[in-house]
């Protein structure tokens, strides 16, 4: 039969075309993500790694300098360690307090018999305030000399902290600001608390358990994925903490940074210095882009390490079954 061979060859060719069409179709559907990933994720990461091994002043072409930037940042750059200490403080204290405060407000919100909507609205509103405006507002409220908070504290005979002007109080003041803008966590915690099956509470009540046991054995297992989400995103946000720390430092120090008038990032005395501030200072104030890229990569590695650590330790929070 002379037709057998061409027919056999024709079938695989049609199949190949079909497969190719399917692959192209799949690629077309994936292309928005692929383009976005390449342009906004893969290229910046690759460029950052490359520039971290170069001397680059943003104007002239980068020049390969090997490990020089890494040696400089890790061995001869004291602000890095100060910023890391501050970041660790903020991660431990600010993130923890935000989760506890957000969860507490969420529980209060779902228990209110009357005015729950108003309470949720008023609690959420501060989250909508632009960070710069909110920080300036807090800097004025907490001004040690003229602010109403210290005025009130003084009137009731309590100590009047220096807040953003005092190295011991600057991070607690930033934490207060973060707690004020708790609206994001309030929303997700309220939603997750409302999602806990009512019948489990009813069963627990029939068994005569108290409020703490009810929270520990009914509420907590149901909301732990959301708590984990809040912690992980909170850690990442804190790693990228920039605007509030920078604005509070500028407003409280009174120094805007004219010639011969050097603004001190992290005022007072470096206690609000964070890694993104160092990235900006090195990259755009001293034109040391290579070092800025090293700090960016360290920030990336630390954020990823925190994330994986939290997820690997999930067994303490979540049931796998």
């Amino acid at each position, binding site marked *: 039969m002379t037709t057998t061979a061409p027919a056999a060859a024709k079938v695989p060719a049609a199949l190949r075309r079909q497969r190719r069409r399917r692959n192209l179709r799949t690629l077309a559907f994936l292309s928005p993500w692929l383009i976005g990933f390449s342009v*906004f*994720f893969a290229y*910046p*990461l690759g*460029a*950052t790694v490359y*520039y971290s091994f170069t*001397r*680059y*002043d*943003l*104007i*002239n072409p980068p020049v390969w300098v090997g490990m*020089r*930037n890494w040696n*400089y940042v890790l061995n*001869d750059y*004291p602000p890095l360690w100060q910023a890391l200490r501050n970041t660790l403080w903020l991660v431990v204290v600010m993130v923890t307090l935000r989760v506890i405060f957000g969860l507490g407000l969420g529980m209060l919100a779902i228990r209110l018999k009357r005015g729950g909507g108003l309470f949720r609205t008023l609690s959420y509103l501060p989250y909508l305030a632009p960070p710069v405006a909110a920080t300036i507002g807090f800097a004025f409220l907490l*001004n*040690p*000399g*003229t602010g109403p908070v210290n005025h009130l504290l003084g009137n009731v005979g309590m100590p009047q902290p*220096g807040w953003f*002007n005092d190295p011991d109080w600057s991070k607690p003041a930033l934490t207060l600001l973060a707690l004020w803008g708790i609206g994001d966590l309030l929303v997700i915690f309220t939603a997750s608390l409302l999602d806990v099956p009512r019948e489990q509470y009813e069963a627990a009540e029939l068994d005569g358990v108290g409020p703490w046991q009810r929270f520990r054995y009914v509420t907590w297992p149901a909301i732990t*994925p959301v708590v*984990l989400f809040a912690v992980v*995103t909170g850690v*990442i*946000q804190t*790693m990228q903490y920039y605007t509030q720390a920078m604005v509070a430092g500028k407003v*409280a120090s*009174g*120094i*805007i940074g*004219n*010639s*011969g*008038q*050097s*603004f*001190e990032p992290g005022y007072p*005395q*470096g206690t609000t210095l964070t890694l993104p501030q160092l*990235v900006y200072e090195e*990259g*755009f104030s*001293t*034109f*040391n*882009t290579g070092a*800025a*890229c090293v700090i*960016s*990569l360290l*920030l*990336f590695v630390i954020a*990823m390490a925190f994330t*994986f650590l939290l*997820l690997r330790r*999930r067994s303490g929070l979540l049931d796998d079954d």
Partner: protein
Amino acid sequence: MHRLPRLRRSITTLACAATLAMLASACAGDDGGSGTGADEAPDKKVTITFWHGWSAESEVKAVDDLVAKFNAKHPNIKVKVVSNVTDDKITQGIRSGKGPDVVSSFTTDNVGQFCTSGSWTDLAPWLAKSNIDPAATFPKPVLDYTQFQGKRCALPLLADSYGLYYNKDMFAAAGITAPPKTFTELTETAKKLNQLNGDGTFKVAGFLPTFHAYEFSAAHTLAQFGPTYQTPDGKSNLSKDPVVPQFFNWQKQFVESQGGFDKLEKFRTTFGEEFSAENPFMSGKLAMTMDGEWRTAMLAQDAPNLNYGTAPFPVPDDQLDKYGRSYLTGTTVGIAKSSHHQAAAWEFVKFVTTDTEAMVAFSQAIHNVPSTNAALAASPLANDEHFKPFIDAFKHPASNTTPASPNGGKYQVTLSEYAYKWEAGQGGDLTKSLADLDKQIDTDVAQVK
């Protein structure tokens, strides 16, 4: 449960996205641009862009008036003006290849970086082409701070000097007849002028000698001692210059004599913004202050009834022969590397920096010191009772400035950060700390070379 793996993937993706998004901001783009326009015909119709840092309404108007004068002489060159621009924006603008033609910076700190990177073009060929002798046209201090290691990438566009502002009514009430000339006199005068509330806090401070007190910064004040920041080979010289520890010890004693750091800092937090009508000298919270010559215009506008005087800022007791000196700085102007109309840009730069009539009018409008010899001689401000000390300080042979560095003003930030620790009592051993500062500054400079 399948929620966890999905959640984990989502969270990991979110972590990557959030972190990488920030990384993206640090490194991207190229300088672009082609064709400098250096050979364009003088009468060719072009539009150039001028970026400057002035932002107050009166200052912006003064710049617009200056541009109008230029346009009257060069009708073929249209100047598009952009105000309130910082050095960071300038660098990014030049880098984009679509930035300004003419750039100006409020600080002399970054001239070193502008010159070494080439982001501001070399003006020497243009000066030669226009037969302008810089040494004969500009006073030496402004010539020094507008070049770096022999490369002139900037020219001065007005200048600033610093002096002592004092409240004449408070002086009279305290029986003081003349402003202090030495630091000992300054300390004694400040003590006499202090006014306290019932609880011991300041109602009025004679002087506030902490480094966050606006213009009383480490760099401005150290200038009164005549420091040598760098050795001839460009190394940091803080630990080897005897006036530096002298300066720190004097400031510490002054702070203590005024009631101590905590008390002064608490009073400082009651101050209004430096460049507002609530400035502490203008609102009567300070009897004396260090400030620049521009304050005279602000006082005339916002505190016309304040009875004040100006004088040179005091000097160390053992340098009385240098009385009249000051820290000098000023606005710098240059041509951006990315400019495609450099011939027209040079015409504009030449006009604003060397046209005597235009400079005199501009300096009068914003109360800055004229930055050419001819404009200094012609300026009516030299006869202004309040302004004269600043012009004299600008001409004083012992006045000085902070030298340019390849990494901008980073060495000043390093010095200031130590000064803030020092005044708070956390400076440690001064000799060792200054040696550490030198090492850090040299390391930072080597890093960008």
